[in-house]
Each structure stands twice: as structure tokens, then as C-alpha cells.
């Protein structure tokens, strides 16, 4: 089984059906045959799981020197001199026999089975089967189908006992909730009593099941394969950027399926991404712009709505009075257009794609980067300073799990509370919130420590220090904002400590939202311009290519919201952003929305913030527009359009282009490709990106490309000169023979061809002081769960009821100390506000801390948080 | 013999005379229209019967009103005038075909008692008159003249349409009609020779008596010989553009030929003109060869019997016309021209010679047998010469020598 695509070092020569085939070393016979063009039928074998040889469908006649014998080709590796015959009489008899057996009890459900038309059992029976069955007796009967979770239905009659689902659940997902029960003729797949198959990855079993035994309840009976049109795209539910295929019928998205690309997701999808297909066509999708009249939002014409926005922007008192929040919902092209509008036309640098719940842009863009493959490189050591990846970036969790379980990767976890990956980590500590910087400094220090830091015992710290020192090769750090109840400064401090102590460390900054990385790359953050360049470094570069650039560095989201609350913001644009729900400090967000003079919300569906906006523009959502997106690694891949947007909703880049046009600047964008061309020719980190390059790399392209950038720019300029000369020649009919040697021009000539500006690099601040410890208070930990009250999850009918809600999670020791009973009611009081809710004991929460899950129904965690404080301290009282 | 002339117009022309003429005009006009309508219906029904089908049976009893329905339909159609058409001539042309059709009927005696030596006149409001609109001295030549004008109508229709197919069609049509008019005229010559008068009234009178062996009536059918009758029948079909000589109108050949660009009532006029001409031509044949209204008046008013005989003969001829239409396939254009020029014209010419010889021989009391032998010999030599001429020209044509 391939690990992470190792290049073939040696070849093994085998003979398949009389032809010589060079297999890779250690390659399974079934894979070698398929690569050579001979398809061997199989049911239980899956390329991404260990083979078990259960179905016996891949039996072929193999002669390894002792005479021909039937062997399961998925279990044997190619050995030199092997002779394989996949078409002999015996092989055919075996295939006939296996299929006849499988069909003995397989119900004649094909017309009503969701898998019909795309069913490996059907296809292989047609291609390899006997044609007639001798079975005339009665087949076995079981109640069908039974729901084994909220999302997956099981039909036990159809199951051919191939074990793919159990192997996936156990080996890949780590949730062994589904298994064979009974034996003999009664063997069936089932879940444990009272434990449904509520894994975050249950949808994958539906996709890999070779028959219609496991089906998705959201897709049940919706369509047939011949109704569907398919496009490949990239999932936009988190920033891992799994490759998916979108199936639609009659202009409605029906489902998503995972596509296997090696560097990212290996064909797996999490259930949130997979079943968010229902959200595309949800009720409540905005199909026309809305303008506020009094208390309500009235549908308006596009020309009126855009004019309101452009007038408001034109009348803003200064560029600093404009603020733009958002960009993670947008594609790279949308983001570039908005960045150009904001920074190049309006001249404001108050742009931030994050909602105060991530990391500063310079950290994300400037730290030396690692790809997921590099993080999971066999034998390495990974330090996780990240949120619970199983909740926020599930497929990244699958990759890390695989690395830890199969590739001897050492995981060291530092998180505010235990996570889904804790059981896989070699070491896992939960420091006090706000003190992780000090802890990490001790972990990378040159010598052991002798004191407890952040609530962790010195011995433990030293043990981890030893692990880190013993790391094989450069350390990899997965860096993210684990808890929004504390500021990002602590984890940035930790990163600074690591890179100072070990300069060869590589980071994978995991920001959660879909294209937030792409937004930052495209300059949707204060102090940066498109292409991962700092404002000051790239000022000249962009001044010659855009109309202008902002005069000075602007505000991030927290700054914009504070300015808005103070009344200094005339126009607040929310690009798919919902500060009221997502900004950690709810009070500040509410005051900001009230304080800003005009609030413009550009979104696909009404959310809490857009309900308070003055202008709502209907945007096209996922699967309704084409473009590119960038994932956590900085890998760019395409998103495709599969269906038409509802009503007159438009892509965000169109809105930016039109607003710019009203303000007097023509962008000249008439398609996402135009924008991609501009991105590929102007933005430093993305130079060389083109639609052809993307088409040639279905796995995506990690940027920046390893190109000689300066020469590339010179090439581009030469091309332009040649084109212009050719045009002049055709128009005037005279040859152009005098060229100004543009490339030799210098700044004195007034023309800046210039070399590309350098990319952002991370500069550490001074180490932070540790917040003083108040032993009567608890420090709040605010984490996320995969299913929450986010708009897309709530729009998907099968996912909406899965949001679990939250209670206050406290360490049992603290519960005793407080004298509160398990599941009692408590009042939580912070400097801002208070909440009353139930309490649950959780040993994964460290002592002195209490955890809440954000964005769940009825518990408004944001009311407790004040972003000005480095940590949120709360007092807990019995209610 | 009288030299013709309607007694009505011999005396003073007063109001009664005018009214009688008007009455005849209206009567003939109405009769022709109704006759055309019924002729079309008859043709459609009879041809259907020959083709084992039913024909029109929905509009009116037995589909009699089908033509009326079609006419009304034509009125409601869009009247197209092609941009390249020569407009005045375009509008004139249908009338040039229709009007002669009406005018042709003016010289035809359609009633009157010719039996027992009566001259077929009737008393109307105190005036004696023939039952025909006019009886000019030129008589049958008027008919020939009118059919020549009809050729103008066809030719101008095609040319003025400003389009290729109509032009081609009209050229062919005019060539066809002109060629067969010669044959037509020559047969009429034979009749005139026999009856000795051009006036139609006189012709009828001369046929009213007894002919051969006092047994059969003195019809020109027999008196002038069967040949002019046959030639006239064939030539009249060609003159009328009826099948089997309808290559002019054949849709497989020329779309619609001269009436391609016509629509609505103008087209209807062509259509009507063709059938009206058929009726009239049948009437002329009846007059020339079958004695017209002449026939025994059995009981009741004699003039009515004249009409009845006239109608019987005309309808019988129309029956033959339609029968021929339903049976014989279309003649190819070159075959058509061959037939007209190389067969009918020499034949009728020859027959005139024979007839003339016969008449002179009878007057001059030549020896009958010698006359017949020499006549036959000359006939045969003439025939032989003609054949030789045709063969030579064909051989030369095949060799490529332009003659």
C-alpha cells in the first residue's frame, strides 16, 4: 500500500497475461496489474486501506515458481519472475463462483437501490459474472433499511460482507463503531447497542461501500447516476481543501463525493463537507439585493443597491472611515477584486478576512511553511499548537492519525483541553490558558526546567523536551488558535519561541474558514498586499500596477469593530462575515454594527449580522461560481461552477468590479479567468499561476512556485511589448523597429520594471508577560465542534439537528471543589456578562479552567469574552 | 345560306333589345360560373372515382360546395406581390386569361329548336333572337382569337412574376399553346370547309339536318371526317394545359410554373380560367362537331330541348376530358412538341387537302375511285416525305450538326 507516493526506486519484473510489467518495489499485484492496464475485479480491496483478502474476487492464477495457484492479488506483493494469468479458465471459474455466491443472498433491489448505475457489484457481475444463477430458493430477509446514524442507512440484505466499512471506521477514522455481528449465515454489519455510528467520517463508508448496503439518508432516492452531471471542485467547508466532485441534476446540487488526491485528502471527506451539499439549494438563499427601509429589508433592484453602496463609499470622509471584514467565503478571484477595490481604489487598509478568531496575517504568511505531506512525513516529529483538528479540520485529523499510527510520526500535543487526537499523541499537555508561550519557551530551551509552568509538572515538561530534542529532522508545528477565549498573542509568542530556538522549523498554520488562507494571500488583511507581500515592501510595485495603495497600515477586525463602535467608520462592508455570531466579543460586535453609519452585507443567506445591515447584496455561493481557492498549505486548486445561482445573485468579484466602475475605475474583469490572469502576472507569491498550470496539476499547485520570479516578470514584460508592437504594426502597416529597452530602465527614467518585492516574513515581538493567576477564577476555554449554528450547517437539513449544544465542562477535581453536582445548573460570570447553564465534568479540561463550545444554540459564549483581555476569567456559582 | 347575324340586332335597337342582350350576358355569366364550379367538382369527384377514392364529400352534399369553399378560402389568403414583379402586368395577366374564357362563350349557341328545319330562334319580349349572345359573321374565328389572347395571359403572367420558374413555365406554355393552336385552327378549317360558313349558328343549322343515309344526323363528326374531331380533341387538351399535356403546371417540373408567384384571388382566377376554358372548349367542340343544340325536340318547348342536348353533349365531352386526365400519363415536353408539330399539323393539313379534294371531286364529278387512289397516294407520299424529314433531322441531330 503506498504511503506518501514514494518514487519508484527499483522495479520488479512480473509477467501478466504474457506481457512483462515492471512493478514498483513492494507493490501489490492488483495495483501493478491495474497500472499496466489489466483490471482485476475486487470488492474488499481499497487503495487507501490495508488489504484483507476477504472477498476473494481478486483471485488470479499466479505462478511464483511452484506452479500456478489461485491467489488473492490484493494480498501478494510482486516478486521477480511471477507469472500471472488473469484470464485463464480457472480464474474465470473462480470469478464466476465468487459472484454467484455473492448474488445468492443479494436481494434483487437494483431498481430501488441508490447504488444502481454506479455499483461495482453490478458492473463486475456484468463484466466477470456467470450470467445466470442456479439459486432458486428463498433469499434471507432482514428488516431494511435501518438507520445506524442520523446520516447513514444500513441495508443488511445487500451487504456482501467485504469489511470495507469496518476497516475504514477502525483504521482510518479511528471510530470503531460498526462491525460484524453474529456468524455463519447470519453474519451482518451492525453498530453496538445504543451507540449509533456517529463518526465524523461516516459518509465515507457510503462512498466506499461496493453495494447499496450503506446509503446516505440525505441522498436516498434523490436521483440516479444517469441524471447527474459532475464537476470536480474543492470543498469549501474548511480550509483543508479536500477535492470533491459535485453531482447535480436539473440545476440542483444532489451530492458531493470525495476525489482522491495524494497531497491532501486521499479521497476522504468529513460528513460536514460531504453533506453540506444540501445547503446549496436551501430555503432562504438570497436571490436579490435588499435595502433597508425602517425596520425591514425590502427587495430592491441591483442598480439601486449598488448605487447605495458606491455612493456610501464615495461619500466616506476618508479611506480610514471604510472597513471591510470578511473574505473567507470568497474565492481567490473574488478576494483579489475586493482587495483591489479596497486598497487600490478606495485606498483603505482596514481590511481583514479573519474575524478575530485566528492568527495575525504576518504569522500565517510569514512563517516558513510546510505542506501536509511534509508535516506527515514518516518518522518526523510534529508539535500541535492547534485547535482540535478532529472538530475543525477533520480530514487533516485523518492525515495526522495515519501519520501517527502507520508512519511512526511522533505527535506532541499542547492544547487547552484534550482533543480527538490526544489518544494518538506521544505526549499531550493542557497548559493553563494564556500561558502556552511560556511553556513552549521552556520546551525548546537548551536545558531542562526545574519548575512547573502553566500548571504542568516539570518532569512532564522535561520529558517532552527530550522528545523534541530527539526529533528526526526539522520540527513541524501545526499552529492555530485553539481557544477564542484567549488572545492570539500567546500562541504567536509560542511560535516565535520555537522559530527562534530552532530556525529550521516548518509551520502549518491552520486557520479554519474555507478560503481564509486565499483571502490573506490576496491581501485581505491589514498591512499586506496581494501575493503575500507587506504593504511597505510592495508599495512601489503596486503603485505602478494599481491606481494607488493605502497610505499607511490599517486596522484588523478588532480595530475596525472598535472604530465602528466609536463611530469612526462610515461604511462597514461584511463580505460573507457575521461578526455578531463569530467575533469572540459579542458586545463589541453589536456596538460596532450600531455605530457604523452604513453597513453593507454581501452574503448568500441572511445571518444575524446581515439582518442588521443597511444594504444586503445577494452573492453566489459554493458550486455557483468558478475560481480558485487556497488551502492551509498554500495550495491553490480550482472550484468549479455546477449550478446557477438563485435568482440574480452574483459572484463577489462582479460586485467589486461594478462598484469600482461606479467609482470611476475600470478593472476590465469579465470572467474569473481574467482575474486569474492578472493574479498570475502581478501578485508576487502567485506569479506564474495560470489556468493551464491548474489544469495540468489536478492535485493543486503549492505557491509560491519555484520559479525565477524576476526573469518571469521580465518575460511577461517582453511579451507585452511584443504584443503591442505587433498591434501597432497591423494598424499602421509599418514595422516597429525601435524599442525602448524597458528592461534596462531604471528608477531615474521614471519606470519601475523592478524586481518583485520580497514576501512577508515573520518578525517576533517581545515575549509576552504571563497573566497573573487568580485562584478564585477559572480561565475560560472556548473551542468549536464540527456541527454548530453556522449558516451552512444549519441550512443543510440533515446536519442541522446534529449540533450538540454545550454545557460548561469542568475538571472533576474542580467540580468537587465548587461543590456542584454533575449536571447541575451554574451561573458563569465574567467581567462582561453572565450565563446560566448546566455543568458537566470532563477530565480533559485542566484544573483551573472551564470549557465551553462556541456557536451552539442558547449559549452565547461571546457575551462573556472581552477581546481586550489576554484571557477570559470567569467565576462559577451554583445557579 | 344566311351569312349570319342575329335577327335581334337587325332591326332597331331599343330598350328591350338592350335588356335582352343584358339578360343573355347575365345568364351566360352566371351559367359559366356555375358551370365552372360544377366542372371542378365533377372533375375532382370523377378523377377520385377513377383512382378508387372518395374525393370531396364534406362541403355540401357530395362535396358540391367544395369549390365555393375553396374560392372563399382564396379570398382570405394573403395577396403577395413579389418585389421584382412588373406590377401592372402582374395584375393584368390573370384577367387576360379569364376574360377571354368568358368571351369565348359569347358565340356559342346554347339552346334553341333546330329540329325539323327550325332555325333555333326564340321569341323574347316581342323580339326574335338566337339563344347565343352574338352571332358575328366571323363566328369561329373569334374563338380562335380569344384563345390566342389567353396565351398572352399565360405568357405575361410568367414574365411579370420576375422569377425563373414562372418565366420558364410561361415560355413553355406559350410555345405549347401556340403550336397546338395551329392544329386547332387547321381542324376548324376542315369544319369550315365542310359547313361552308364561319358562323356558329350556321354550323349548327347545317348539322341539324340528316346526314349519311338519312340515318345519322349530319354532324361534322362524320361529315368532316373523324380526323379533325380527333385532332381537335387532342389539340384542345393541349390548348387548355390539361393532362396529359399539363407539363406546364406540373409541380414536379416547374413548381407552379406561370402561377408560382400568384396567391389569393389572382391564383384563383387562373384556376377558374382553366376550368372555364375547359367548359367552353367542350362547348365549342359540341358546336363544331356534334351539332350543338341540334337534336330532336320530343315534347314541350323546343328551345329547352336545345339546351338539354347542348348540355348533354357538353357534359359528355367533359366526361371524356376527365377520363383522359385520369388515365393517360403526362407527356414530356419534347414529346408534346413532336406531337403537335410533327403529327397533328401535318395530319390536319393533309386532311384538309383530302377534304378539299373530296369536295371538288364531288362538284366536278370526278371519278371517285381515281380520286381516292390519287388522294391516298399523295397522302402516303406526303406521309413518307414527312417521315423522311423527321428521320433525317433526328440523325443529323444525333451527329451534332446544328440544323
Amino acid at each position: 500500500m503506498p504511503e506518501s507516493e514514494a518514487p519508484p526506486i527499483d522495479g520488479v519484473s512480473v509477467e501478466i497475461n504474457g506481457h512483462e510489467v515492471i512493478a514498483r518495489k513492494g507493490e501489490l499485484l492488483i495495483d501493478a496489474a491495474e497500472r499496466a492496464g489489466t483490471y482485476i475485479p475486487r470488492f474488499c480491496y481499497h487503495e487507501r486501506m490495508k488489504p484483507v483478502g476477504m472477498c476473494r474476487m481478486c483471485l488470479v492464477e499466479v505462478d511464483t515458481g511452484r506452479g500456478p495457484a489461485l491467489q488473492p492479488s490484493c494480498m501478494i506483493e510482486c516478486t521477480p519472475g511471477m507469472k500471472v494469468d488473469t484470464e485463464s479458465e480457472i480464474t474465470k471459474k473462480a470469478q464466476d463462483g465468487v459472484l454467484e455466491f455473492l448474488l445468492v443472498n443479494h436481494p434483487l433491489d437494483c431498481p430501488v437501490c441508490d447504488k444502481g448505475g454506479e455499483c461495482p457489484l453490478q458492473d463486475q457481475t456484468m463484466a466477470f459474472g456467470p450470467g445466470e444463477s442456479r439459486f432458486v430458493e428463498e433469499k434471507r430477509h432482514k428488516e431494511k433499511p435501518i438507520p445506524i446514524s442520523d446520516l447513514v442507512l444500513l441495508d443488511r440484505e445487500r451487504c456482501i460482507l467485504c469489511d470495507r466499512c469496518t476497516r475504514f471506521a477502525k483504521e482510518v477514522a479511528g471510530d470503531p463503531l460498526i462491525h460484524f455481528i453474529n456468524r455463519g449465515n447470519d453474519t451482518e454489519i451492525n453498530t453496538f447497542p445504543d451507540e449509533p455510528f456517529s463518526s465524523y467520517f461516516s459518509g465515507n463508508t457510503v462512498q466506499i461501500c461496493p453495494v447499496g448496503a450503506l446509503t446516505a439518508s440525505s441522498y436516498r432516492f434523490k436521483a440516479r447516476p444517469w441524471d447527474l452531471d459532475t464537476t470536480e471542485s474543492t470543498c469549501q467547508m474548511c480550509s483543508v481543501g479536500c477535492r470533491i466532485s459535485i453531482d447535480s441534476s436539473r440545476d440542483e446540487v444532489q451530492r458531493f463525493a470525495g476525489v482522491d488526491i495524494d497531497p491532501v485528502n486521499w479521497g476522504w471527506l468529513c460528513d460536514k463537507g460531504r453533506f453540506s451539499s444540501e445547503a446549496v439549494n436551501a430555503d432562504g438563499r438570497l436571490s436579490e439585493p435588499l435595502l433597508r427601509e425602517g425596520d425591514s429589508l425590502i427587495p430592491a433592484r441591483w442598480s439601486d443597491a449598488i448605487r447605495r453602496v458606491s455612493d456610501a463609499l464615495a461619500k466616506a470622509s476618508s479611506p480610514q472611515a471604510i472597513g471591510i471584514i470578511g473574505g473567507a467565503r470568497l474565492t481567490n478571484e473574488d478576494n483579489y477584486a475586493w482587495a483591489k477595490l479596497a486598497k487600490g481604489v478606495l485606498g483603505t487598509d482596514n481590511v481583514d478576512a479573519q474575524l478575530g478568531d485566528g492568527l495575525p496575517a504576518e504569522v500565517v504568511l510569514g512563517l516558513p511553511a510546510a505542506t501536509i505531506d511534509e508535516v506527515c512525513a514518516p518518522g518526523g516529529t510534529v508539535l500541535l499548537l492547534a485547535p482540535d483538528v478532529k472538530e475543525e479540520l477533520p480530514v487533516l485529523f485523518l492525515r495526522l492519525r495515519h501519520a501517527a499510527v502507520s508512519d511512526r510520526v511522533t505527535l506532541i500535543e499542547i492544547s487547552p483541553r484534550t482533543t480527538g487526537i490526544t489518544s494518538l499523541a506521544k505526549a499531550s499537555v493542557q497548559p493553563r490558558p494564556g500561558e502556552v508561550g511560556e511553556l513552549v519557551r521552556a520546551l525548546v530551551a537548551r536545558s531542562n526546567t526545574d519548575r512547573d509552568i502553566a500548571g504542568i509538572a516539570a518532569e512532564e515538561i522535561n520529558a517532552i523536551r527530550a522528545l523534541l530534542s530527539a526529533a528526526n529532522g526539522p520540527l513541524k508545528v501545526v499552529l492555530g488558535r485553539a481557544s477564542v477565549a484567549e488572545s492570539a498573542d500567546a500562541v504567536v509568542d509560542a511560535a516565535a519561541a520555537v522559530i527562534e530556538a530552532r530556525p529550521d522549523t516548518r509551520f502549518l498554520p491552520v486557520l479554519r474558514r474555507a478560503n481564509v488562507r486565499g483571502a490573506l494571500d490576496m491581501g485581505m488583511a491589514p498591512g499586506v498586499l496581494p501575493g503575500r507581500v507587506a504593504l511597505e515592501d510592495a508599495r512601489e510595485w503596486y503603485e505602478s500596477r494599481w491606481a494607488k495603495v493605502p497610505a499607511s497600515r490599517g486596522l484588523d477586525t478588532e480595530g475596525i469593530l472598535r472604530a465602528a463602535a466609536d463611530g469612526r467608520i462610515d461604511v462597514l462592508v461584511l463580505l460573507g462575515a457575521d461578526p455578531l455570531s463569530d467575533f469572540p466579543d459579542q458586545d463589541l460586535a453589536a456596538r460596532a454594527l450600531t455605530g457604523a453609519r452604513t453597513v453593507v452585507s454581501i452574503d448568500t443567506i441572511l445571518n444575524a449580522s446581515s439582518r442588521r445591515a443597511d444594504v444586503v447584496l445577494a452573492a453566489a455561493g459554493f458550486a455557483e461560481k468558478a475560481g480558485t481557492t487556497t488551502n492551509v498549505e498554500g495550495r491553490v486548486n480550482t472550484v468549479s461552477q455546477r449550478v446557477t445561482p438563485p435568482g440574480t445573485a452574483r459572484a463577489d468579484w462582479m460586485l467589486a468590479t461594478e462598484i469600482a466602475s461606479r467609482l470611476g475605475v475600470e478593472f476590465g474583469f469579465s470572467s474569473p479567468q481574467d482575474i486569474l490572469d492578472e493574479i498570475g502576472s502581478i501578485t508576487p507569491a502567485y506569479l506564474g499561476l495560470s489556468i493551464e498550470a491548474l489544469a495540468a496539476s489536478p492535485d493543486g499547485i503549492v505557491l509560491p512556485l519555484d520559479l525565477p520570479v524576476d526573469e518571469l516578470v521580465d518575460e511577461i514584460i517582453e511579451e507585452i511589448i511584443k504584443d503591442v508592437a505587433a498591434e501597432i504594426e497591423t494598424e499602421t502597416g509599418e514595422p516597429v523597429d525601435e524599442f525602448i529597452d524597458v528592461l534596462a530602465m531604471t528608477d531615474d527614467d521614471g519606470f519601475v520594471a523592478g524586481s518583485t518585492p520580497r514576501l512577508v516574513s515573520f518578525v517576533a515581538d517581545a515575549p509576552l508577560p504571563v497573566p497573573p493567576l487568580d485562584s478564585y477564577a477559572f480561565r475560560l476555554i472556548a473551542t468549536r465542534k464540527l456541527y454548530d449554528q453556522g449558516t451552512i450547517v444549519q441550512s443543510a437539513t440533515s446536519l442541522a439537528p446534529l449540533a450538540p449544544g454545550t454545557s460548561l465542562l469542568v475538571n472533576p477535581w474542580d467540580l468537587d471543589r465548587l461543590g456542584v453536582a454533575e449536571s447541575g445548573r451554574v451561573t458563569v460570570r465574567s467581567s462582561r456578562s453572565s450565563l446560566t447553564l448546566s455543568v458537566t465534568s470532563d477530565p480533559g479540561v485542566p484544573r483551573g479552567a472551564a470549557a465551553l463550545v462556541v456557536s451552539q444554540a442558547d449559549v452565547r459564549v461571546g457575551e462573556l469574552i472581552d477581546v481586550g483581555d489576554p484571557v477570559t476569567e470567569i467565576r462559577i456559582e451554583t445557579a | 345560306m344566311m351569312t349570319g347575324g342575329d335577327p335581334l340586332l337587325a332591326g332597331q335597337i331599343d330598350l328591350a333589345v338592350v335588356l335582352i342582350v343584358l339578360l343573355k350576358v347575365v345568364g351566360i355569366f352566371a351559367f359559366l360560373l356555375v358551370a365552372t364550379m360544377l366542372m371542378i367538382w365533377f372533375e375532382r369527384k370523377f378523377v377520385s372515382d377513377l383512382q378508387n377514392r372518395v374525393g370531396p364529400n364534406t362541403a355540401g352534399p357530395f362535396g358540391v360546395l367544395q369549390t365555393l369553399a375553396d374560392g372563399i378560402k382564396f379570398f382570405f389568403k394573403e395577396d403577395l406581390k413579389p418585389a421584382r414583379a412588373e406590377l401592372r402586368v402582374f395584375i393584368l395577366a390573370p384577367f387576360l386569361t379569364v376574360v377571354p374564357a368568358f368571351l369565348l362563350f359569347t358565340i356559342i349557341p346554347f339552346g334553341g329548336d333546330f329540329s325539323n328545319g327550325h332555325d333555333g330562334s326564340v321569341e323574347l319580349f316581342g323580339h326574335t333572337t338566337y339563344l347565343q349572345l352574338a352571332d358575328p359573321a366571323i363566328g369561329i374565328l373569334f374563338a380562335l382569337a380569344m384563345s390566342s389572347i389567353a396565351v398572352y395571359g399565360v405568357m405575361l403572367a410568367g414574365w411579370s412574376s420576375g422569377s425563373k420558374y414562372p418565366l420558364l413555365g410561361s415560355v413553355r406554355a406559350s410555345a405549347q399553346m401556340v403550336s397546338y393552336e395551329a392544329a386547332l385552327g387547321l381542324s376548324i378549317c376542315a369544319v369550315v370547309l365542310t359547313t361552308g360558313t364561319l358562323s356558329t349558328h350556321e354550323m349548327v343549322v347545317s348539322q341539324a339536318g340528316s346526314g349519311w343515309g338519312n340515318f345519322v344526323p349530319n354532324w361534322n363528326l362524320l361529315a368532316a371526317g373523324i380526323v379533325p374531331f380527333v385532332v381537335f380533341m387532342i389539340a384542345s387538351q393541349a390548348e387548355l394545359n390539361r393532362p396529359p399535356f399539363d407539363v406546364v403546371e406540373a409541380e414536379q417540373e416547374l413548381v407552379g410554373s406561370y402561377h408560382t408567384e400568384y396567391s389569393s384571388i389572382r391564383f384563383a382566377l387562373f384556376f377558374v380560367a382553366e376550368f372555364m376554358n375547359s367548359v367552353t372548349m367542350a362547348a365549342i367542340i359540341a358546336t363544331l362537331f356534334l351539332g350543338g343544340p341540334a337534336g330532336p325536340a320530343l315534347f314541350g318547348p323546343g328551345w329547352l330541348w336545345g339546351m338539354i342536348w347542348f348540355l348533354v353533349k357538353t357534359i359528355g365531352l367533359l366526361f371524356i376530358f376527365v377520363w383522359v386526365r385520369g388515365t393517360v400519363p403526362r407527356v414530356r415536353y419534347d414529346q408534346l412538341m413532336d406531337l403537335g408539330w410533327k403529327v397533328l399539323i401535318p395530319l390536319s393539313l393533309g386532311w384538309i387537302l383530302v377534304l378539299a379534294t373530296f369536295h371538288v371531286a364531288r362538284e366536278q364529278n370526278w371519278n371517285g375511285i381515281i380520286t381516292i387512289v390519287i388522294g391516298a397516294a399523295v397522302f402516303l407520299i406526303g406521309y413518307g416525305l414527312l417521315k423522311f424529314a423527321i428521320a433525317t433531322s433526328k440523325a443529323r441531330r444525333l451527329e451534332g450538326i446544328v440544323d
Partner: protein
Amino acid sequence: MGYLGGFLVSLRQIGRKQRVTTQYPKEKAPKPARVHGRHVLNRYEDGMEKCIGCELCAGVCPAKCIYVRGADNEPDAPVSPGERYGYIYEINYLRCIHCDLCVEACPTEAITESKMFEFSFTNRADAIYTKAELVVDDEGLPQKLPWEDWRPGEDTQTSAWMRATSPSGAANFEGIVGWSGELGYGIRAPEAAQDVKDAITAKHDDHGHDDHGHDDHGHDDDSHDGGH
């Protein structure tokens, strides 16, 4: 007779008895038994619909004129026997070419064609026949819409095509009736020229609630694939 013989030939055609015209639409020429006309959705003898919403007809239709969507049967009010029924079933007769591939493809003999093809509508909306219009009524007869020209006898023969061509091609099943009963008619007799050695009545009462595995003739899906 030469040229003139032809005239007698045409004259001989005169006569009412020799006219071959059919006065359509007052009288119609008799339609062959398996003429392809308007479709109907059949029902079992107990009234349940045969259509299981499997979309095989839509998939095979070369004119793409059928739109089907399946849905789960309500447990207390099932429309069809089994899990799935045709929730949406529409045929667009502006596109239908009456090839009857859908009749061939249907696994439950739900869709068959009647002999009535004289239905002209005056607007496009009428052209799209919904399930309510296609399903047979409670007597098993096709529904008669206002613009359709049904003649006596035409509405009783709606599945002749299917009964003429089934059962499936395996030689073992020749002569054995292989179709299920229809509402209002029970098990219909086979086509005239076929021999019925064994009519299956008792076994067909159970129209296979979950699967057709009960049948030991003719409906084995296995024989659909591959081997003949």
C-alpha cells in the same frame, strides 16, 4: 388494344365498392394489437401502483422525455409494494418518440403503452403528463383527458406489447406466463399466437413485497445481465 386499353382500366375503377378511403376521423382503420400510443402506469390487482420510481425508464429514454423521482413509501400508507415508489413521474409528450424502450426497461411492468395516439394538446403545459394523469384509474382503465380521442375498445388493451414480448429470453421459460396481474383484469391472457402451458395465478398474488426472489421464473434479474 394498345393505347386505348388503358382507358378501360381506368373506367373499370368506377364504383363505390372499389373506394378504399377511410373516412378518418369518423371511422378509423383498425389498429394492430401492439401499436405504440400513450403510456399508462399500471397497478397491481390490489390497487398498489407497480411503479417503484427506479428511473430505469428515464435512463433508457433516447428522447429524455421522462422525469422520475422516487420517494420512500409511508409505512402506513404505502403507494407501491416495497421501499420506494414513483413520487414524481412525468412524461413530456412533445419529446416522446413512442419507441417503448421504457416499457422494455421497466422491471415491474409498470409502464406500458396503450393504443391511443390521437391526443393533441394546445399548449405546452398540457403536453407534460403527470403521474396523476398517467396512472390507471380504479378499474384499471386509462384516464381519459379532455383532448384525447379514445374509441371503444382502445382503453382495454394497454399492455399487449409487453405480454407479447415477455417473458425474458431464456428458453426454459418459454410458454410460461411471466407477467403480473393488473388492476381490473387479473392475469391477462397472452397474445394470440402464444401457447400457455402453465398459467401462474396463485404465485402471482404475492407480487413480491421486498424482492422478486420469490419468482422462480422469468424475473430473475441475474438473467438481465450478460448471458443469453
